[in-house]
Each structure stands twice: as structure tokens, then as C-alpha cells.
């Protein structure tokens, strides 16, 4: 077990450093509070469904009561909030960065298929900006002991299959965007907690504490493990 944790820690560190080293071009502000505030603001911006999900539903003609119910997040695609609460800051940022990378990838296909989504380009730019801030935050945390702590279990998410049916593809896109906004909402919640104790890790959310002792080793609600970085399969 110890060996497994060490291995994961090393993997996480390697990937994190790789991310830091490859992405670095400009300089970061170096102010933790300022950076954290920016991350929060970005998360708030991105959880707003009026930017992506609502226009998508409207454009795809899914804005009827019966269909909207099917447009709910598919569990397991995005890390759950509980799982995010359990992550160290470093791991949280890694997971967040990787997830955003996957979101970007998926939104690129949207951009091709749905040119009517006018804000899509702007949202994608914001996601890249979010990643830039994550990079800077990782730089800030990199020198602390926090960053070196072992991560929680990082299961790989499920790999959803793309439906061949056009309607099913619409629904999948809808579910994906719904999950994205919900995920960003969760991220915003976690980041808010960061501000309260800048130097302490909060391992568990208050909500989790109330849950029935499910000491989560699962980042995803289906119990699959989250990869700390890299591709999010769907």
C-alpha cells in the first residue's frame, strides 16, 4: 500500500512538474490571494449555465420539459464535489487542469458542429485562462509541503461511448455541458473553502462529514479512480 501511494505520488509530481515546465512562458503574479480570487471568479463565470448549456439546449431544440429531464449530468464523467473535497490542493489543481483540458477538447468538436454557439470561443479562451491560473497556483504551491503530500485515490473515469444516433448525440452533448457547469460549481465551492484556510488542507467537505462514513476513495460517483492528470476518457 505504501509503495502504491508513493508510486502515485511520484506520478502525480512528475505529471505536475511536466505541466509546469511545458506550459511556462510568462511570469505569474505570485500573490496567493489574488490568484485564488481569480480562480474563484473564473469558476463562478464558468458555472453559469447561460454561457453554454442554455444556448446549447435552445439551439438543439431540447428546451422542452420532457427532454430537459434527460439533460442531466451522467454520473462519473466529471469528478464529484465530494471527491474534489478530498483532494489535496496540488491534486485538485491537477485534476482540474486535466478536466479542463478534456472539456476544451470536447468543446472544440462543439465549435465545429455548432457554430451558432457564439460564446463558445470565449468560453474556451476562459478555460485556457483558467489553466494559466492553475499553472501559476501550482507554481505557488510547488514550494510548499502541501504540494508534496500524497494524493487521494485517482481512479480513471469511465469511458463513454459516442452514440451514433443524432438525437442521442445531442443529449450526450447536453449532459456533458450540464456536467461541466456542475463541475465548475463544485470547483468554485472548493476554492471558496481554500480562502478560509490558506495554508491548511481541508480534506473533507462539511457535506461529506455528514455522509454515512463513506470515506471516499472514489473521485467519481461510480467508484472509478481519477487520473491526476491527462486525458479524461468518455
Amino acid at each position, binding site marked *: 500500500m505504501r509503495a502504491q501511494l508513493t508510486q502515485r505520488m511520484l506520478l502525480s509530481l512528475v505529471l505536475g512538474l511536466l505541466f509546469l515546465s511545458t506550459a511556462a512562458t510568462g511570469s505569474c503574479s505570485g500573490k496567493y490571494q489574488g490568484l485564488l*480570487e481569480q480562480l474563484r471568479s473564473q469558476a463562478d463565470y464558468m458555472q453559469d449555465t447561460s454561457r453554454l448549456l442554455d444556448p446549447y439546449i435552445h439551439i438543439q431544440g431540447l428546451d422542452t420539459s420532457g427532454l430537459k429531464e434527460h439533460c442531466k449530468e451522467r454520473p462519473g464523467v466529471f469528478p464529484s464535489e465530494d471527491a474534489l473535497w478530498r483532494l489535496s490542493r496540488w491534486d485538485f489543481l491537477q485534476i482540474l487542469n486535466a478536466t479542463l483540458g478534456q472539456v476544451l477538447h470536447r468543446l472544440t468538436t462543439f465549435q465545429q458542429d455548432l457554430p451558432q454557439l457564439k460564446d463558445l470561443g470565449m468560453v474556451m*479562451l476562459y478555460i485556457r485562462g483558467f489553466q494559466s491560473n492553475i499553472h*501559476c497556483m501550482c507554481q505557488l504551491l510547488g514550494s510548499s509541503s502541501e504540494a508534496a503530500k500524497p494524493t487521494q485515490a485517482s481512479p480513471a473515469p469511465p469511458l463513454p461511448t459516442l452514440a451514433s444516433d443524432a438525437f442521442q448525440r445531442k443529449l450526450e452533448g447536453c449532459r456533458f455541458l450540464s456536467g461541466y457547469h456542475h463541475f465548475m460549481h463544485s470547483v468554485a465551492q472548493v476554492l471558496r473553502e481554500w480562502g478560509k484556510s490558506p495554508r491548511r488542507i481541508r480534506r473533507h467537505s462539511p457535506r461529506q462529514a455528514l455522509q454515512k462514513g463513506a470515506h471516499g476513495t472514489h473521485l467519481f460517483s461510480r467508484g472509478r479512480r481519477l487520473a491526476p492528470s491527462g486525458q479524461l476518457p468518455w
Partner: protein
Amino acid sequence: MLTLQTWIVQALLVFLTTDSIGGLLDPCGYINPESPVVQLGSNFTAVCVLKEKCMDYFHVNANYIFWKTNHVTVPKEQYTVINRTASSVTFTNIPLLNSQLTCNIRTFGQIDQNVYGIRIISGLPPEKPKNLNCIVNEGKKMMCQWAPGRETYLETNFTLKSEWATEKFDDCEAKRDTPTSCTVDYSPVYFVNIEVWVEAENALGKVTSDHINFDPIDKVKPNAPHNLSVNNSEELSSILKLTWINSNIKNFITLKYNIQYRTKDASTWSQIPPEDTASTRSSFTVQDLKPFTEYVFRIRCMKADGKGFWSDWSEEASGITYEDRPSKAPSFWYKIEPSRTHGHRSVQLIWKTLPPFEANGKILDYEVTVTRWKSRLQNYTVNGTELTVNLTNDRYIATLTARNLVGKSDASVLTIPACDFQATHPVMDLKAFPKDNVLWVEWTATNGSVNKYILEWCVLSDTLPCIPDWQQEDGTVHRTYLRAPSKGPTVRTKKVGKNEAVLEWDQLPVDVQNGFIRNYTIFYRTIIGNETAVNVDSSHTEYTLSSLTSDTLYMVRMAAYTDEGGKDGPEFTFTTPKFAQGEIEAIVVPVCLAFLLTTLLGVLFCFNKRDLIKKHIWPNVPDPSKSHIAQWSPHTPPRHNFNSKDQMYSDGNFTDVSVVEIEANDKKTFPEDMKSLDLFKREKISTEGHSSGIGGSSCMSSSRPSISSSDENESAQNTSSTVQYSTVVHSGYRHQVPSVQVFSRSESTQPLLDSEERPEDLQLVDNVEGSDGVLPRQQYFKQNCGQRETSPVISHFERSKQGSSINQEDFVRLKQQQISDHISQSSGSGQMKMFQEVSTAASFGPGTEEQVERFETVGMEAAIDEGMPKSYLPQTVRQGGYMPQ
């Protein structure tokens, strides 16, 4: 001379030689550096290197090199011969220049040849750009600007570079016309720090500004709040509630605001304390405002933490606070007038109107009560500022309150003493003196308690009566100046529009201001409408009344207010026009233009279709009085001098005819005439289609009168009966052979000619003609003669007036001669008469008498030469051209 020739030859030789070796394209050497850009004040050295081939050919080396700048030889002191092929020149402390430097050699000892040339440009390297700053106008892309530093005199490019921590953005190249700013291509991303710097580069170097790192949200200039509205509250007359709509930036940041306000006529703004508006909001209630006062507001916003830029001011919005009860009792006084009835007196109660800031609304009326000791209260409601009551000689108490929509003012209480009242503490030592452009009044306070003092005064003038004015002072005051204006401003209209009127007035003279004018109030009303009051700042001398009704009579007056009170000026009336300026013009001009256009089109149409219109509406009606002799011949000899206008009708089938020449005196002629007459009869039906009645063809009208006019002795005036006109219709003209030759006759309702009315005359002529066996023709010509008799002389005169060179005396003389000849001739034939007429008609041209002779001759000859006429070609015999009818 020999030297010159030698030079020329040598020059040619050099030219040909250089050309043959490609000298112009392949220079003899080169200069290094090729395109130098030299820093101002520095030293510069250029080296000219000759090519071996050229050196050998011209037998030169580096010693032969000399330099020129802008065609001026550089002193040899600046040259350095480096080796056999190269020579350099050095310039020290290069000034600002843009000059040409050439390397030259002297060949054959006397011919200067340019080897190579370069252009030296001097300037300065760019300075480090300073004061780099960026702004993100909400909804637009980020724009950065900087101070470029000193002038470089060189083309300098400024590039704005930007990057995140993880990626770079495209460079932003500053445009030539705006080298100190650049707007990036990408939309700003808030909450991500971006690093920005500027690179300035020219031929002398590249320099980079300091990097700035910022979050674009901290550089935002929000859009101004919009839809600002102002609402008052009926509950509180001192507040106004502002509402507005924030820009979308509120979704990203917390905003703070500046709210400014002023009264409508003030020029300076007051500001709401910033701490009251330090967070995002969309409404605000402004307090501590004056009742019934119009305020103007504006608002702007920026990021709450002060980072970024203030938005522009919003559009101004105004609102009026609700009314409040008058805040002060009006000044109240009385005058006692002697009464005619014993035991009574007439008391005039007078008071001052409250200034707007004390009236707190529109004063609807004043309530006055008059009470005698222990007697019944008398109430009066007055709209004006005075009330005359008839009182007994007893002591009375009068009260006055001003009422507006909200409530009443405090009461002013006035004691009207009894008739026999004697003041126990009169005011002493009353003095008046001018100071600071006002008249001060000072008195010694009385010992007893005083509620208030009343000052009365009037202007002493030789021409004006003493019109007393007054003002009220508190009981504690013993010195004051006369405040209330003694005269109100005279308002007039500067411009009256359909729905607005610009009022103007002159500042009250200082002499009548009696203090400081605080404000003016304009009262205006229609005959049936309520009076509206508008307060105007004292600094203004004009005001625009808006929302007026058109075509309405308005009455307007102004009051000027000092702290003490106000005074109304005279009333002025004006009527708003029914139409706005330019409105009538906007209606009339297009209508006129349309009418003009229609008329023009109509005229053009009529002009184009004039023939058709004339045919249908007023066809040519032959006027017998204007008939004249025509030559009637089967083949018209080409003796008339037709002008070009005649040619226009050469192809016509119908021709207006003025004169018909008749070939006579040949026996053969008459049978031919008869033939023609028969032909005319046969073809009459067919020609009617051409002649179309009386005016259908001018041929009808002209041929016959000209024939009949030969009988000039018959000068009786015939004005009754109808006459038949002959019509000559033909298809040819002049020398053209008509396809169908027609001689026709038409009916006419023209007055019957004299000859027709007097058959005996015709018979006489018939007899004479009958001796020559030409009876049928004479019958025909009788009618013509009869027609001609209508007014032969007048006709001639009319025609003569049209002629350009007619001697009227000769003309009359000729007529007289013709008449006498006619009488003297025993023949008396119609033919002779006709010839005379022809001659007369021909007298339009110069040489009247000669033409008479010539026409006779020609007419005879034509008859002889041509033989029997085959057709009759009516022609105008008019000098100078064709005579249309």
C-alpha cells in the same frame, strides 16, 4: 576647340566602352556599407572598392577615387587610401541628414566617372517606451498605449506583446498613424493575469519597455449605467429615487458609483458621498432636497476597488421633488385708506408672494382672517396679494396663510390698531444711506419688545408718483437694506415655435434690484388653462418653455425674487403658430415642385404633340382677310426663293398656301382649268379626308382668297352668309411630282363674300369672261373674287407688316396704280386682276414695281411654256420664306 573635340570624343569613348562592358549595369566598384543608417552624432566611414577589371581598363587605382555628398566633393582630408583598390571616407559627428554619397574616379585625367552611390540616413535608436498602460473598454478589445520617447527620425515600429503564464498572444503591430497605441486582436479574458510590453525597433536598434502584469478586469472602463430615471415620493418632498440599469460588467465585478446632481438651472454639480455608493446597486434615493424643485442627475461607475477607469457619465435625467407646505409665512402688512362713511375705514391688506424656496410648491391661494375683539371671524380666500376690507375703527387682528397642494404655511399675524391708537414706542433716528450699491436703512431700536418692523419706501422722482413699497424685518433687526426688487423683469419672446417658446428678459438694473436676485419665476398660462410656474436661476436671461400647444395664446409674466420677496413684471402674451418653422415650406415646396413638374411635362407633351393638338383643338381656320395671291400653275417654275424652312415641307403632302399663281391668258389654259375643276369635282370626296373641313388644311384657305383678291374694285365689306372655299390638295411640292394630284373644294361657314351675295356682279364678270369662252372657270373664280373683296387693302397691309423690307408708301402707290390700271383696262378680265394681285402680293419683297412686271411676264411665260397645267401647286410667295398659316 581642339580640346573640346577631344573631350567629346573621349567622353563618347568612355560611354561606349562602359556600355560595352556593361558599365552602367556592372559598376566599377562598390561602397561598403551598402545602405547605412547612421546614428546622429556618431562617426561614419564608407569604403569604396574598385574592381580590378575596371581599374585595368581605365588605368586607375584607389588614389583616383574622390567622394561626393549630394554632388559636392568631400575634402580630400577625409579620404584614406586603404590599398590599391580601396579608399575610405570618414565623416565625424554625423548630423541629421538623408544624403547621397558617391564614389567617383577621374579617368583619363579629366573625366569624372561615378563608380557607386549610396544613401546615408541618420537618426536615433528608439528610446524605451514608457508609461505603458492598457484599457479595456467594456465589450471591446484591450487597447494599450505608451509614450514612444524621443523622435528617432527613422521608421520605427512599435510592437505590443502580450502573454499569459502559459501561452503567448499574437503581436499587435502599432499602425503608422497611431504609433503610440495598439488594440489587440483577442477579446480580453478577465481574472487571468496578462503580461504586456512594447518593443520599439528601427534600423538602429530595438528596445523593450518595462513589462506590466495585470488582470484585464483591473483595466476595465465599464459602459455607463443607462436608463437612468428619477421618481419623486409623495410622502417625502425632500427625496428623489434614482433607478438605472448597470452594464453587464456587473456580472464580473463589484461596482461603485458617482452620483451627481444639481438643480435644473445651476451649473455646478453636487455629489452623493462616495461611501454611500460603494457597492453594486441599481437604485439610490437622494435625500435632503428642496421641495418642488427640479433636479438633474447623472451617474457613472467603476470597479469597486478603484482599479480601472470610470465609465462615461450616463445621460442626464431630471425629476421634481414633491411639494411641501410653505415653509414660511408671507410678509403681511396693511394700508388704511380714509373712508367716506363715519365710523368705518377701508383697510387694504397686502402681502408678499413667497419665493419658490419657501413656497415649496405652487401657491393655490391665500387665506385671510380678520377678527375684531370677541366678534365673529371673517374668512377670505384670495388668489392675489391684497385684500381690501371695510372695518370699523376698532382694533382688528388679521392672519394670513399661504396654501399649496400639500398644506398651509404658518400664519402671519397682523394687528390693525384702532383708529385712536397712538404708538408708545415710535421708531427713532431713521437713516438711509447707500452702501455697496444698495440702500441701507438704519434706525434706533425701540425699548419695548418688537415683533417685527415694516419698512416703507418709495422712489422719489419728478416724473413718477410715489409708489410705496415695503419690506418686513424681524423685531431684533435695526439695520437692513432694501431688498425686494421694486420692479419685475419684463419678459418677451425671443423665438416662438409650434410647441416651444424662447423667453428672454433683461437683468434688472441694480437700482431696482434692492438686493440680490436669487431667482426668477416664470408664470405662464393659457386663457383657460392653469398657471404653470417655472423657477429659473438668476444668472439666466432666457428660458425655453416647452410642451406648449400650437396655435394657442399664452400669457406669461416673470417675478424676480430676492431673499426678501419678489416682484412681478408686466404680463406678456404670445401665440404659438399653427405650423412649425419650415413645416409650411415642407408642404408648399413639394406641391409647387410637383405642379411645376407637371406643367413642364405638359408643356413638353404639348410641344411634342403640338401638331396633333392643334389639329384637334384649334385647327387652322383660314382668315380670308389674310389671303393673298397664289400662283396656280400646273408646273411651278423654280423662281421663288424658298429658304431652308421651305425644304422642311418638301416631302409633305399638304402645304400651307398663301398665294396661288394662276396661269392665264392662254386659251388652252381654260379647258385645262376646267379639267382641273372636273378633277376637283371627281375627287372631292377623296380629298375631303385630307382637307378636314374648314381648318383641316391651309390649302383650303389660301388658294381661293388669293384668286378672288384679284378683283380689287369690289371692296365692299361682306360679313354675312357662308362661302365655299376651294382647297388644293396635292401630294407633291414645288418640283416634286405629286403622286396624286388633286384639286378639291370644300365647304365653309366663313362669311359670304360680297360677290356671292351680289350675283349680278358675278354675272358681269361672267359675261366678260364668257366672251373668251372661259365661263366655267369664271364661275369658279367669281367666288374667289367675292371672297377677296372682304378687305383687300388690309390684307395687303397685314402681309406687308410681315415682310422684312417693305416700303409701305410704295406698296400703297402700287395698289393705287393697279386699281387705276384695272379700271382703265377694257378687258377687265379676272385673269388680269389676278395678275395684279399676284404682283401686289409679290411686293413683299424689295423692288416692288419691278416684281410686278416680272411676275406678269413670268406668269405668262409659264402658261405658254408649260402648256396645259397638269396640277396646281400652291406656293407661298413671300420674301424670305414660307408663310405658315
